């Protein structure tokens, strides 16, 4: 156990019962036929809020909200590689993905666990093809991602990739394209875009998908699939994600443009 930090309480309570849909006394509006909570169609994502430059200390930063999924991302660099890491002709990408201790239903540890390390790896893999690393010899670009609130783990990862790519563009790192990422979960064997926590856990053998893509070039940079589905569903899901990525790309461009307008 870590004795240097103040330990959080074992159990947590929701401070404002009214804000929690599941709290007693709050009746969720009845679902329309063929629609999900919030009146979404199965393929719809949640509305996105994306803004760059919120972390003024960093070279570039982005903050993204999709429903209750909230992710902050900061990019530092390109800066000189440390001696111990050795010489490299190409630039390197380093990512640290972290859920805030209070981000999930269950409290997370301060140290990164295996899932967070895996996600860091995924973000690096998803972004590396887009970045012109040959332009940055001996340099490293550090990406720090903090999930402030987790509402759907797959959606957190997708949001993190989207935010990281936006932050890299904000930092002025040269890249061949932005990377947008979309997630979906299979609901009764049907793909449903950008699922919050509650929607995906009802059945055993739940499956989900995260897809990262460079929308202008049309190249998929990363695909992470979990759970058993058949081929037809899978290919439908991938197509659905690619459609969503194009929409996310528009949001990314808009936020970068808006930020540049604000600075001038």
């Amino acid at each position, binding site marked *: 156990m870590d004795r240097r930090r103040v330990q959080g309480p074992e159990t947590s309570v929701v401070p404002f019962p009214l804000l929690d849909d599941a709290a007693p006394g709050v009746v969720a509006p009845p679902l329309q036929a063929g629609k999900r909570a919030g009146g979404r169609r199965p393929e719809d994502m949640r509305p996105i809020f994306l803004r760059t430059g919120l972390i003024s200390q960093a070279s570039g930063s982005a903050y993204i909200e999709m429903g209750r999924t909230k992710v902050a991302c900061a990019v530092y660099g390109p800066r000189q590689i440390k001696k111990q890491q050795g010489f490299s002709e190409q630039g390197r990408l380093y990512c640290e993905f972290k859920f805030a201790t209070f981000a999930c239903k269950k409290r997370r540890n301060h140290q990164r666990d295996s899932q967070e390390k895996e996600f860091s790896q995924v973000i690096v893999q998803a972004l590396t093809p*887009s970045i012109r690393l040959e332009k940055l*010899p*001996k340099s490293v670009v550090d990406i720090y991602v903090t999930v402030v609130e987790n509402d759907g783990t797959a959606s957190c990862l997708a949001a993190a990739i989207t935010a990281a790519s936006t932050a890299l563009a904000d930092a002025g790192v040269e*890249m061949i394209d932005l990377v947008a990422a979309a997630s979906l979960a299979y609901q009764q064997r049907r793909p449903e875009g950008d699922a919050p926590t509650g929607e995906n856990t009802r059945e055993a053998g739940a499956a989900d998908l995260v897809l990262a893509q460079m929308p*202008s070039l049309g190249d998929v940079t990363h695909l992470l699939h979990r759970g058993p589905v058949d081929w037809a569903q899978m290919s439908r899901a991938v197509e659905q994600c690619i459609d969503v990525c194009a929409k996310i790309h528009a949001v990314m461009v808009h936020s970068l443009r808006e930020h*540049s307008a604000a600075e001038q």
Partner: protein
Amino acid sequence: MSEQTFVTPAEVVTSDPSFMRGHGTYQEGKDIVSAVAGVVEQVNKLVTVRPLRTRYGGEIGDVVVGRITEVAQKRWKVDVNARQDGVLLLSSVNLPGGVQRRKSESDELQMRKFFTEGDMVVAEAQAFFQDGAMSLHTRSLKYGKLRNGTLVVVPPSLVLRSRSHFHTIANSVEVILGLNGYIWVCKRATKAPEEMDPDELYANVNEDISNQERETIARVCNCLQALSKRLIPIDYTVLAFAYEASLDRETKELLEPEVIEAVTTEAVARAAMVNE
């Protein structure tokens, strides 16, 4: 092409084959495509995309302010806001007392007496290494260790090249406009470097700084922050006018948006009049 076109990565800048591709772009078939999020710039037939925020590029002869990050073999590593740390060789610093001789092993052993990690220095870019790292020198009494003041960081592209980068404002504050975006604001030295004791050049102790001097330093810093927030190119003229325009406000007010607007607008207008 209009003058202010904003592009994002993978956006086609132009398909006209008569253009040459410059920094921040890459070729994709016939198209010149942007590689950064920024503004398209065109000089004759050369098309470049200037990113909104960049690290400092640097040129030989630039005055830069930096922070020592590492003491290595016969050299110091200096953070100069560039992609790679700058290098200050032991052979390119002045010895205390201005003695001219080759640096010996004993000098190498007491490198930390000159500069240690965290020290601020002002130096000049002397040359570039093969890998693009900048070699610095402090072989003039203008350059060397910085004391008695505070650092302001602004985007490097905002600092204008000018004849001199060492200025005095209000007769009490010295400003060193580092071209790398690091600006040092300090109390005006009571002694010229030539009159200083050999040991004083590399001393680590601040002089006494009166409250009034502290206030002036803070005011100049806030003026710089204000100019940088509005993305106004900074040189001595604009800064001096911003300082004058700020005098009827309290120092702490200078970071409020309306005050920034008022002070910088006035400073820019007056600077434009002088430049005409």
